[in-house]
């Protein structure tokens, strides 16, 4: 499992994907945080990364899908999946290695923005006067959200041997679970049904963790969500056996 994990990481580093993902993430969040007119840090006058945490889930939908689109579809296209699955390693181990490799890459992209966190704390008055609970909660929320997106991405990558199809499928599913479900919660005529649907959306739980209150229910939700999509990926893997 460790071997496959290392190979995945190496292939990210070798194919520029790693640098592009980290660069794009840093630049986009930076733009929204510091430069885009209207609600950047200076306009709001509040020493908080809230702007970044609001926009990051949408940027991640795109980036995580781009990171995961190749991981299984390319093995299918090349036929190397047959080699992998005839080595003494279980399907579960293959999927988990790929999952953790992609998630590691995203984690590094997230950690890079700690530069912004430091800057913000220096800008605060007095220095260091930031809501640490909310900030750490938001980072944890982003990581858990990225885990869900990664699981969705792997699933999308497993159902096709075409990277572009995998990318689009992953983006659509991720957007649905993050944004569409929570929008349904705001539709007035759906009333309580809408609110229940919103509960199944990722945004509901992300918002909840972002406030800095780490509720086990949210953690369990993210964990379960990830597990369900990884399970679906495993099912697709096993469909060759039917």
């Amino acid at each position, binding site marked *: 499992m460790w071997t496959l994990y290392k190979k995945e990481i190496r292939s990210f580093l070798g194919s520029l994907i790693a640098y592009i993902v980290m660069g794009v993430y840093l630049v986009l969040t930076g733009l929204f945080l510091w430069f885009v007119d209207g609600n950047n840090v200076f306009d709001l006058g509040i020493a908080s990364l809230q702007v970044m945490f609001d926009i990051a889930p949408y940027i991640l939908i795109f980036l995580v899908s781009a990171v995961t689109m190749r991981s299984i579809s390319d093995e299918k296209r090349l036929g*190397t999946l047959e*080699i992998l699955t005839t080595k003494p390693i279980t399907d579960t181990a293959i999927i988990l290695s790929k999952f953790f490799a992609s998630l590691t890459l995203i984690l590094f992209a997230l950690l890079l923005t700690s530069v912004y966190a430091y800057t913000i704390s220096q800008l605060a008055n007095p220095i260091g006067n930031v809501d640490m609970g909310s900030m750490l909660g938001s980072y944890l929320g982003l990581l858990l959200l990225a885990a869900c997106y990664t699981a969705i991405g792997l699933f999308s990558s497993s159902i096709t041997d075409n990277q572009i199809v995998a990318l689009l499928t992953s983006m659509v599913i991720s957007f649905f679970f993050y944004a569409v479900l929570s929008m349904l919660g705001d539709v007035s005529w759906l009333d309580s049904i809408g609110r229940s649907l919103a509960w199944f959306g990722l945004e509901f739980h992300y918002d909840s963790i972002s406030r800095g209150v780490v509720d086990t229910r949210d953690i369990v939700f993210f964990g379960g969500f990830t597990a369900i999509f990884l399970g679906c990926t495993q099912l697709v893997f096993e469909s*060759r056996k039917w």
Partner: protein
Amino acid sequence: MSIQVIQLTKTYGKQQAVDHIDFHVATGEIVGFLGPNGAGKSTTMKMITGFIPPSSGGGSVCGIDMVENSLEVRKIVGYLPENNPLYPEMYIKEYLTFMAGLSGVSDVKKAVTDAIALTRLGPEQHKKIGQLSKGYRQRVGLAQALLHNPKVLILDEPTSGLDPIQVAEMRNVITDLGKEKTVMLSTHIMQEVEAMCERVIMINKGKIVANETLTSLKERHKGSLEDIFKQLTHHVDLI
């Protein structure tokens, strides 16, 4: 007995790709697995190597059940799939090191060096796989199958798409390997079988139509192996 297959069956929908076949391969044998395209050769090999499970029936490799204990079987089997899939962007050594790790080899470095030597990849070993000629790629595929020093080698069309010189070289390598290992190779090239194999298992439409040594097969049917093949697979000449 290295490979033992009993009533092995694979059904895709209504089509019987492999239809209740029985055969065995003794330790140290080189057996040719012959048949027209679509006869079920690859499917049989995929079942032995654990890529797909059989619909019914089963078998064992070196006494280990291939359905119940697939992971253990994979440790002692080296497999070269049809079309030899590889990662073009990886370096040869990088790829072999990765594969050795996956196969659970303890001394990875030695395993890679040995496999490179066995398949005579030496002069090209620092290249990327994508830059290699077809013949060398095939050797990388074979090297991958040899890394964990398997007792049994399963090679699905190891010489397809190679030029005559490469074919001859590949044959030498396989014949050498056959001195220590049990080899089962599939092909539809008759000369191949005559050059390498002691015994032939012929399969057509999922059923075994011949399973005997080359000499007895020729005695019984007269004529060249190619004629026998056509006869047994009910091939109708168009000319």
